[in-house]
């Protein structure tokens, strides 16, 4: 699916979608001719109407005891695909334990599912017709026998995976009381060729690794894509024409523009939470300074001038502060300053050197890379530097990025190379912010520099 074809939600029942899809999707309503339409399905006669369902299980509880949910193969020609994507999302997040079962007709026989240990049940159909794809989806509480959710989606024939991710997000939110993150994408750098001169391409995929495709050719070294939190844009660094600088790519139009006019190398871009500015590092002398660049006016503002290396800046989700990496104290450490610059305060004090800080969308955690004794660790700490926890370690683990609800980090894992570069690998992993449920995303070939999109982005 090309980015420009991605459907936006257009809705007939604003309140339902406001709950499930947020403001951004609603703002896009009406703009998409081939959008996803979501209609409430009435509860079946025998089920209690208006069942509240939902959200009696916390994420913490589900980590310990994943929620058993029956996800049968839905009816219709697209049922197999939709079911497998929903099941993959819920199983891969570690908070659900999908159970295969027979497709119930009408009101399910809850006694049978209760005896299987199931807590919830999915039923429905996914059918492709002349009008495109229609998916009828119901979510049931097995314990009470009530329908928690019933929605019919209509969309383009090629949107089965997208609808399935949307449904998985609805299930996540109804059962855990938090927004999900399955209808999202990950931009990354695809790598190929010999270790000494790897071909790098900007690439993008669904968060489950499907629909992976390139966004740039491999002529120039390209690094560190970063999603806009509010629009279909990526900021990234390219060595185009042998001048390493920050660019912005509009995913809908394919238009790519240089961002900022600097003498030095500009790198380490990161969007502000409102999407209006991008902060980045610019080399000067033996150091680098942090600048913000306004996307509309292209006006730039210098935020640091320590003479040291100040890099990897990232805003707090409320936009009031910036965490960054600096060696102004002698070794690379993490600092926090106000969004306007100034008042920098060091927050990292553990063993080793620190880098690549990224602020959680929840605001309560900063993820980072720590290097000690030649080994890399990925960790999180509170913004005041307390509560440091290491989540995973390896030869190289770096460039962490939070999923939209802040519950999971994606990161790059690289293995050591032997003589001639053999043994080197580079892949994208994910891990829960508690250090639970580490897995890898099966991207095509070698990959690095993951950047998670916002929800429905």
């Amino acid at each position: 699916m090309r980015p420009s074809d991605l459907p936006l939600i257009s809705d007939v029942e604003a309140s339902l979608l406001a709950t499930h899809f947020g403001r951004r999707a609603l703002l896009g309503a009406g703009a998409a001719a081939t959008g996803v339409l979501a209609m409430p399905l009435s509860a079946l006669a025998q089920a209690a109407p208006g069942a509240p369902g939902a959200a009696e299980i916390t994420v913490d509880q589900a980590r310990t005891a994943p929620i058993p949910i029956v996800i049968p193969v839905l009816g219709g020609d697209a049922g197999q695909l939709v079911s497998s994507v929903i099941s993959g999302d819920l199983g891969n997040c570690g908070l659900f334990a999908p159970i295969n079962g027979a497709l119930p007709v009408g009101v399910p026989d809850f006694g049978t599912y209760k005896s299987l240990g199931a807590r919830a049940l999915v039923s429905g159909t996914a059918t492709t017709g002349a009008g495109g794809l229609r998916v009828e989806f119901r979510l049931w509480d097995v314990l009470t026998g009530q329908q928690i959710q019933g929605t019919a989606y209509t969309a383009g024939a090629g949107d089965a995976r997208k609808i399935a991710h949307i449904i998985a997000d609805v299930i996540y939110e109804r059962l855990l009381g938090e927004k999900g993150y399955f209808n999202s994408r990950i931009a990354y750098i695809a790598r190929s060729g010999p270790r000494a001169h790897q071909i790098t391409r900007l690439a993008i995929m669904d968060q489950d690794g499907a629909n992976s495709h390139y966004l740039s050719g491999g002529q120039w070294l390209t690094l560190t894509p970063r999603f806009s939190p509010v629009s279909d844009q990526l900021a990234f660094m390219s060595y185009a024409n042998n001048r390493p600088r920050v660019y912005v790519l509009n995913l809908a139009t394919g238009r790519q523009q240089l961002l900022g006019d600097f003498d030095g190398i500009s790198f380490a871009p990161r969007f502000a939470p409102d999407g209006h500015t991008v902060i980045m590092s610019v080399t000067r002398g033996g150091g680098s300074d942090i600048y913000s660049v306004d996307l509309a006016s292209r006006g730039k503002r210098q935020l640091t001038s320590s003479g040291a290396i100040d890099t990897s800046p990232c805003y707090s989700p409320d936009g009031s502060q910036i965490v960054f990496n600096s060696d102004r104290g002698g070794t690379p450490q993490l600092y926090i300053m106000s969004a306007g610059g100034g008042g920098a305060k060091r927050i990292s004090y553990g063993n080793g050197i620190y880098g690549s800080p990224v602020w959680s969308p929840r605001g309560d955690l900063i993820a980072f890379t720590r290097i000690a004794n030649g080994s890399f660790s990925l960790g999180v700490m509170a913004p005041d530097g307390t509560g440091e926890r290491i989540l995973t370690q390896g030869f190289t683990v770096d460039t962490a990025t939070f999923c939209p609800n802040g519950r999971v980090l994606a990161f790059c894992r690289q293995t050591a190379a032997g003589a001639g570069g053999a043994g080197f690998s580079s892949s994208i992993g994910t891990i829960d912010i508690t250090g639970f449920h580490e897995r890898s995303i099966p991207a095509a070939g070698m990959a690095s520099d993951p950047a998670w999109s916002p929800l429905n982005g």
Partner: protein
Amino acid sequence: MRLKLLGALGMAVFLAACSDDTNKGATTGTGAAAQSTGVTPGSEADLVANVGDRVFFELNKNNLSSEAQATLDRQAAWLAKYPQVTVQLAGNCDDRGTEEYNIALGERRANAARDYLVAKGVAASRITTISYGKDRPTATGDNEEAWAQNRNSITSVR
């Protein structure tokens, strides 16, 4: 003489065929300078073979060792001899740092070499710098020896 000239031309063509997006001479250069003939004076091959195209750094450092200074002294003398030549200094790092910090660190290394050359009389306008961070390792193994090779600033003729 004719064969020698053809050899030199062949080398020049080979080097010209390299993409801009590389560390030129990365596979052939050394820090040592052994006298060599058969290369075009003032060329990239001349620099690599007879001057020494790169200097090396300690972990997380940009200090110039006495060996590095000696190499840069030879580069300054060579640049004085060929005033039409302009060079790029490419800073590189081992892979024991974060991706973004290493881009800045590589530039800091190239900048240290640049400042030294300028102090030795090379016009600043003849020198550009770039950093590849940890993305263009010369030595592709992951051991102390390879990392030491990869912490460098490589001078190439533009």
